[in-house]
């Protein structure tokens, strides 16, 4: 990151020697507090600062960013994910008569190079870019609720090594712009020098098209994206020369995303639709168990004997469907000229639903005798509500602008249910206030889990986002 900062400083110094240049600096900070409940938490916070300099047809840019994304999910095991990213990036883009060239380097690490061939008046264009990176996805910890479990905690690091090739082509005829693109994403499995890690092998294709029309008073935009991915995740424990696979997750996922936008002066509206499916098929073969905790045990006599006398494996099939519709409008009305104050209001409505059919097979093997238990259940999530954003932008002589907004998710309905057909469970005995106890009570098979708290104080901890941005142009 220090090297990147030095490169950018060098570019800036070189550029300042040029006769004329335009300069833009910005600082953005934001936070999203999506969930804060006993068994589920998700939040993200981040800041980034960027600066760019335009000299004739050359644009130089660089930035520093710090993000912290955290998630937690409790379901028999407590799964925690943390990604604490501090990175810098620098790059340039140079536009010539028939070509545009660009390079972007990030300390993630990540590098992107781009070449675009176009007609001088943009009647048509064809572009290709290639990206390669090795970003850290983060650290994931599984913590068993039972401290005395043989494997109480597994903490793995996950770094991906990806290559992304992107091709796009388009045409601009009068006020209409059409484009199509294709992207090919793949990761190469690599083994880092860590004790526990996740290794991925992903192949994905992304196809899409877009249209943009500019008319007298209105502009419209439409986009469609399709993605199909084959994802294989391997959990590995590595000690000296030995590597052992304790997790194998094969996923096949598809996404359809469509978006339409309309804009007239200070009013804009949009409608988005997304539909995603994912399938995970348990592999019955040896060494392809979804989870094989024995192999993740630290070295011990117990580990050595456990494969013969007490082996536990899990194989999971899952079928996931999810869809969401998100639409709304933004209205802003600038007041003033040199000093502009622009209040903004955005109201969106959403509907989302998802369903996961899960079949979990637990295998306990003692010598040659295997006892299998199968749990089949469905988890359903549905929600509708609105998202309200209030914000304002203050611009001073077009050079400095300060933008602040707060967003609150206002769910009218949230339902998260687990359905276990045909299964009747006993609830824990509840104690009478003094002495004695009632007998066990049966309860409904269908139970509602993890509803969002309805108290006022919970509002700022669930579905709340805020953002502050300062931009300076010269």
């Amino acid at each position, binding site marked *: 990151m220090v090297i990147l900062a030095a490169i950018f400083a060098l570019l800036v110094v070189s550029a300042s020697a040029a006769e004329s240049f335009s300069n833009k600096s910005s600082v953005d900070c934001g936070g999203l507090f999506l969930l*804060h409940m*006993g068994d589920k*938490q998700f*939040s993200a*916070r981040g800041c980034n600062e960027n600066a760019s300099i335009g000299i004739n047809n050359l644009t130089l840019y660089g930035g520093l960013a710090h993000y*912290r994304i*955290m998630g*937690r999910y409790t379901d028999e095991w407590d799964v*925690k994910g943390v990604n*604490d990213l501090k990175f810098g990036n620098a790059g340039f883009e140079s536009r010539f008569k028939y070509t545009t060239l660009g390079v972007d380097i990030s300390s993630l690490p990540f590098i992107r190079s781009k070449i675009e061939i176009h007609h001088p008046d943009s009647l048509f264009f064809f572009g290709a870019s290639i990206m390669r990176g090795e970003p850290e996805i983060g650290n994931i910890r599984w913590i068993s609720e039972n401290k005395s479990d043989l494997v109480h905690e597994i903490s793995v690091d996950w770094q991906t090594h990806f290559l992304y090739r992107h091709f796009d082509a388009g045409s601009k005829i009068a006020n209409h712009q059409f484009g199509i693109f294709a992207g090919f994403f793949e990761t190469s499995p690599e083994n880092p020098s860590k004790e526990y890690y996740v290794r991925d092998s992903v192949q994905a294709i992304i196809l899409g098209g877009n249209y943009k029309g500019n008319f007298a008073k209105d502009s419209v935009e439409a986009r469609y994206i399709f993605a199909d991915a084959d994802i294989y995740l391997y959990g*590995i424990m590595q*000690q*000296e*020369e*030995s*590597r*052992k*696979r304790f997790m194998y997750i094969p996923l096949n996922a598809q996404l359809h995303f469509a978006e339409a936008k309309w804009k007239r002066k200070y009013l804009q509206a949009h409608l988005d639709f997304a539909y995603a499916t994912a399938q995970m098929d348990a592999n019955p073969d040896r*060494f392809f168990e979804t989870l094989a905790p*024995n*192999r993740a045990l630290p*070295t*011990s*006599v117990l*580990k*050595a*004997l456990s*494969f*013969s*006398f007490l*082996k536990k494996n899990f194989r999971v099939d899952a079928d996931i469907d999810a869809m969401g519709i998100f639409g709304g409008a933004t209205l802003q009305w600038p007041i003033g000229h040199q000093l502009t104050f622009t209040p903004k209001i955005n109201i969106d409505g959403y509907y989302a639903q998802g369903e996961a059919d899960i079949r979990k097979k637990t295998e306990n093997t003692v*010598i*040659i*005798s*295997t*006892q299998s238990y199968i749990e089949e259940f469905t988890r359903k999530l549905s929600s509708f509500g609105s998202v309200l954003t209030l914000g304002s932008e203050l611009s001073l002589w077009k050079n400095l602008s300060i933008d602040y907004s707060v967003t609150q998710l206002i769910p009218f309905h949230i339902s998260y249910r687990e359905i276990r057909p045909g299964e009747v469970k006993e609830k824990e005995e509840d104690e*009478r*206030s*003094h*002495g*004695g106890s009632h007998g066990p009570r049966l309860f409904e098979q269908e139970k509602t889990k993890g509803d969002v708290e309805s108290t006022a104080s919970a509002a700022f901890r669930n579905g709340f986002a805020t953002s502050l941005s300062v931009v300076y142009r010269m």
Partner: protein
Amino acid sequence: MNGFKKFALALSCGTFFITGCGDDSSSANESSADLPDTPSFSVSSCEEVTDPEMSAKLEIAKSNISEIFSAFGDGNIESMQAMSASNKDVFAEVLNKYPGNCEAQLGYAVSIITDLVNNREVKGFIDSVTNKQKFDDLDVEDFNKYLINADGTKMTDQLQKAVASAIPSVDSALIFMKNVVADENFVCHYTYEDRTFELDRGEFAPTVAALYVAKSILTMAASLNIDFSNNGSYDWLNDYYENMQYDTISSETMKFAKNILSKSSSFTTVYDDWKSAYKSIPSMLDSAISYVQIGLQYGIEESKKGSASQMNDLYVVSDDEMSDVSPSDLQKAIDSLEYYRKTLTTGVEITFPAGSKVTINLGKFFEITDGWQDFFPYHKVNDISTWLIPEEGNYFWEEGLYYISYANRYIESTIERTYKNQIEDLDYTWADIDYYFGDTLLLYVEVEPKNDDYYYDVFDIAIDNCTISFTKTESRYSFYRTSEDAPIKALDPINLSSDFCKVENGVTLFAQAFDYPEKNVITFTDANGNKTISWQSLESGHIVDDKIEDYKIDDLKSLIIFPDITFGGILPGMTVDAFWEFLKAETRYDDETEAPYVVDSNWDDEDW
């Protein structure tokens, strides 16, 4: 009361070597079980079965083994008994013709163990335990019914005889299995649910180890005097459970309880004729370690041949990702076992979670044959009449009757005793003094008659100097259901002694505990019998700089004194200071490691 019955069965079935009592009259020379003869026979090395008919029988018998284990897993003992007997015969038949066939030897060894369910003594014990279920179904609450058989034999004796009779079977299985292990090249192929398994020395040797461990446990169970009857009767146990709550345990029961805790008691001593076998347990465990090492070493040797030859093994040894365990893991396990083997002889230094290092010599544990009571801290059992009385230094005087008042617990205990004496067929009663909305003092008595629903009696409490009187009243809460048929309409006043109550300047003061009025059951002493601290004081805590504080581990060093801090050499070189420092470090570590779950609730507020 079901809990009592389960406890009784547990005493006889499982926890025999840590629970129970014996009486003074039982002699250490008195043995419950005869020392079994150790079988001795030679077995031929491995040879093939050439007769197709025998070969087919062998395969069927092999597949039956998993059915037998399955029946055992399902708790179907009868089915297991029948299958096991016939299967053992098949293996015997093959062995008659091919005495050197290792598959038959292996099968026969396994059958010997599964066939233990057909052993006369074991079968008798299983039947006895099964029969006891009827008492549970009938809600019988007499420990004599549970722990003494119809023919007058004690369950503990029957258990020890069954255990002793199983030892020769384990010995026979050991002879066969050790012979199987001796042939490095012998493997047994086994097809189960469409998958072929290859069992080899990697499994056989740890199985021998498991048999040695089983023999050690059986020997220990048969060797120790676990007779906790009082001259063949468990009336003391009935008395204890029925009257403990009311502080009316008979003096005879108290005397018996004191006796079994005394050094002269034969309870937990080793029977004379079993002493030699008991002292050989470390040698058995040493053999177990050796056989585990042999099994692990075999895995390392297998890994040198590559993974392909291990694909039917229960585990694949290799450094590759498509394997279960690495050779270096197995080597480390072997080295670790070699290190810990010394715990059985000279002792080794063990590092505990908080980093404390303690040398442990487990071998010395098996040299203790005169009872574990010798190592209890110096103590004496207090007279039951003094249990509820506050001891000087454990209380302060203050107005008000609260749950921390010694008088409170005394009154509740007295009332419970009154109910027990006055209500026939009482199953359970429980009294509680509580404030209603902070000002009205009420007494709630929960009454559970046998075979009837529970109800509450509620009384207003009046305090007149140190006389507490009760007036029956209505329940203030709907869930405290009262009964119009309740037989007790009034309670006599209770005059509190000066131990609990005094009047100063017209104000009634009660002796209040620092924490909770604990029953003062035992008192710790020094070697000369001089009191160091009572149980009540220990639980109450003490005043330091005008603040009530719990006793810390540093304080206990001079209050709880062990006759031998090395515990018979199990902790060689241990000193009093080092012992308490060890406890302090490890208990503190336990407390600290609980903390993350508390921190987690705000974990995303960490500084970023």
